[in-house]
C-alpha cells in the first residue's frame, strides 16, 4: 500500500518511474489529490531544499526531484481545478536589456518552480517596457532582474524607473542579482532586495512572501 511518505521519498530520490505508480495507487485508493500534492509531492521537495542548501545535493539532483514532482502533478492536476493548485506566489524573472547571460536566471527559475512558486520567465535581453507590460499582465508578487555586466546593471535601474513611470512599481517587490550587483547598488536604485545567487534568491523570496508588506497577488 502506497503512502504519502513513499511519495515524498520518491521525489527525494528523483525516481521518475516510481512516482507514477505511487501517485496512481494513492488516487485509486481515494486519497484527496490536494493531500497528495501537499503532503506527498511538495513535502518531498521540502526535504530536498535544505539538503541542497547544506551542499548535500547538487542542482542536477534537485532538478531530478523537481521533474519527479512534476510527473506526479501531471496525474493529479486533471482531478482538481487550477485554483486548487497551491502556489507560494508569482514571480516574473528576466535578464535585463542588453544582457544575454541566462544560466543563473535559469537556475533561479528552476529553483523557484521547485519550491512551489509560479514563475513567468521573460528570458534574456528584456527591455524595460517588456518588464512593465509583464507586471501589468501577470500581476506578480515579485519581479526578479539579473545583470552580469557593469554596463547592463544600469538597466536594472532604468527598468525600475519604467515600472514607476507606468504606475506599477508599488504593486511588486523587486529583487536583483548578478556578478557586478551589490546590496549597496540595490539600495541606491530602490530595489527591495539583493541576493548573491539563485539559492539565496529563493530564501529572499520566501522571506518577502512571509512579510506582510509583500503585495498580495492581485486578481486578474
Amino acid at each position: 500500500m502506497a503512502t504519502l511518505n513513499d511519495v515524498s521519498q520518491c521525489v527525494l530520490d528523483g525516481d521518475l518511474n516510481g512516482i507514477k505508480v505511487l501517485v496512481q495507487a494513492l488516487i485509486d485508493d481515494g486519497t484527496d489529490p490536494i493531500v497528495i500534492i501537499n503532503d506527498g509531492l511538495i513535502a518531498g521537495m521540502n526535504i530536498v531544499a535544505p539538503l541542497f542548501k547544506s551542499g548535500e545535493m547538487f542542482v542536477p539532483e534537485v532538478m531530478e526531484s523537481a521533474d519527479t514532482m512534476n510527473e506526479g502533478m501531471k496525474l493529479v492536476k486533471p482531478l482538481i481545478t487550477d485554483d486548487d493548485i497551491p502556489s507560494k506566489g508569482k514571480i516574473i524573472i528576466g535578464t535585463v536589456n542588453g544582457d544575454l547571460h541566462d544560466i543563473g536566471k535559469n537556475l533561479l527559475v528552476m529553483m523557484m518552480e521547485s519550491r512551489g512558486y509560479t514563475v513567468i520567465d521573460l528570458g534574456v535581453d528584456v527591455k524595460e517596457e517588456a518588464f512593465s507590460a509583464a507586471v501589468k499582465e501577470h500581476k506578480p508578487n515579485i519581479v526578479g532582474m539579473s545583470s552580469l555586466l557593469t554596463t547592463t546593471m544600469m538597466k536594472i535601474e532604468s527598468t525600475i524607473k519604467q515600472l514607476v513611470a507606468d504606475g506599477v512599481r508599488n504593486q511588486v517587490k523587486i529583487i536583483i542579482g548578478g556578478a557586478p550587483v551589490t546590496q549597496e547598488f540595490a539600495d541606491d536604485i530602490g530595489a527591495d532586495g539583493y541576493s548573491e545567487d539563485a539559492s539565496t534568491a529563493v530564501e529572499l523570496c520566501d522571506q518577502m512572501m512571509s512579510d506582510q508588506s509583500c503585495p498580495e497577488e492581485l486578481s486578474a
Partner: protein
Amino acid sequence: MAKKFNKLAYTNLDDFVYGSCPNPVTTKSGMVIGGGVVYPEINFTLPGMDINDVTMPKAATIYSNIIEGVLKRAAELYAPGVLVEFETLPDFTEHPKYGIEINRILLNGMKEAAEKYGLKTAIRTTPNDLREFSRPPIMRSGKYWETMLELYEQCAKDGSDFFSIESTGGKEIHDTALVKADIRKAVFALGILGVNDMEFLWKHLVDLANANDCFAAGDSACGFANTAMVLAEKGFIPHVFAAVIRVTAVPRALVAFEQGAVGPSKDCAYEGPYLKAITGSPISMEGKTAAGAHLSPVGNIAAAVADTWSNESIQQVKLLSEMAPVVAMEQLIYDCRLMNAATVNGQQLMFRDLLVQSDSALDVQAYVLRPDVVMRISAELVKTQDNFLRTKLAAQLTVAELKKAIVEGKVKSDKRDMKWLDKMEKAIESIPDDPNEFYHQMKSELDMDKFIPSEYGL
C-alpha cells in the same frame, strides 16, 4: 585547407614549460610570445555605466585614462612588454563605431607609451559573440554576424595584433547540459554544435586576419567550461563534472588552430595547456591574479605552461593605492618577473613544478591541468582527426584519469565524486561513434525551440 594535428608538439615533458613553445609568435612591436619570456596581459573594463552616444565621450576618457595608467606602471616596473586585451562590451560590438573608437584610443596609448618609455606593446581585440542575441541563435548571417566582422576588420586595419573571441556556438544546448550534469548532451553541444560552429567562424576570422596583417589568436570555452567551473565553485554541480567538461572542451578549441589560428590562445581558455601540447602555439592563461574577476581553483597551476599571464578583467575603480587596472598591471608584472627570473637561473622546470604541485592535489579541476596529465591525454587525442570522436574521447580519458587519481589518493575528492564519474563513464559509453547517429539519438531530448540545426550545418 585545415591543418591537421596528428602528433604532439613536444616529445619531452621537461620541455613543456611556461614562456616558450615550438611556434612562437612575433608581434608588430617585436615581442616574441612563446620565445622565452612570459609577458603580462592586461585586461580592463568600465565601471557601472550606460553606453550610448551621450556617454561615449566619458567611456572614451575612461579607456584613455586606463591605458595611460597601466602602461606608465608597466614602464615604471621595467616590463619587457605588455599585451593589452580589449575585450569589448556588447554595445561596442553591436555598434562597431564605438568599439573601433575605443580600440583606436588604446592603440594610440600604446604608441605614446612606445615613444615616451620605449615600451613594447601589442593588442588583442576580442569582440563579443552577439550571435546569441537572436533567440534561437542565428550563427551564420544577420546583423550580429555582420557587425562583429565589421569590428574585427576595422580594428585589424587600424593596427590590432591579434583577434580572439569567446564564441558561443552550442551554448544554448550546453547550458542545459551543465545544470543537469548531462555529459551526453555536453558532448553533443561541444563535439557537434561547437565544433561545427568553430569551423565556420574561425575560417572567416583567419581569412580576415590574414588579409589585414593580423594574427588569429584563439578562442575560449568560457561560456562552457568556465561556466561549469563557476557552478562547481558554488556547489551547484560536482567538481568532477566541471573538470571533465574542461577537457571535453579541448577539441572544440583546437578547431581554431586547425583553421589557422596561431595563438596566444585566449586567457580564460583554461584548455590552453592542451592546445599548447598539441599545436606548439603560445597560450595565455589567468589564475591567482585574476582573483579580482572570479574565483578559481587553479590559481598557480594555470601559470605552469603560460606564455602570457592575464588578470582576466577588472573595472576602473579606485583602490587604496591606485585605480584597479594599474594595480592588476603591477601584480602581473611581478608574477612574470618571478617566472622569468627562474628561467634565467635555470630553475624554470623547478618553478613550473612548484606551480603545479601547489594546486594539483587540491582540486580535480587543477589536476587535469597537470602537464603530465595534459601530455598523456593529448597524446591520445591526436590519434584521431575527427573532432566529434576527439570530444567523446576527451571526456572518456578524463573520467578514467580522475578515477585513477582519486583511487591512488593523488587528488582531493568529494565522497560523491566516484558515483558521478561512474555515471559519466556509463553515459559516455552509450554515445555512438557516428555523429549523425548520435544527433538522431539526441533529437528527442533537444529543445528544438532553442536552436536551429541548419545554423550548425545539420
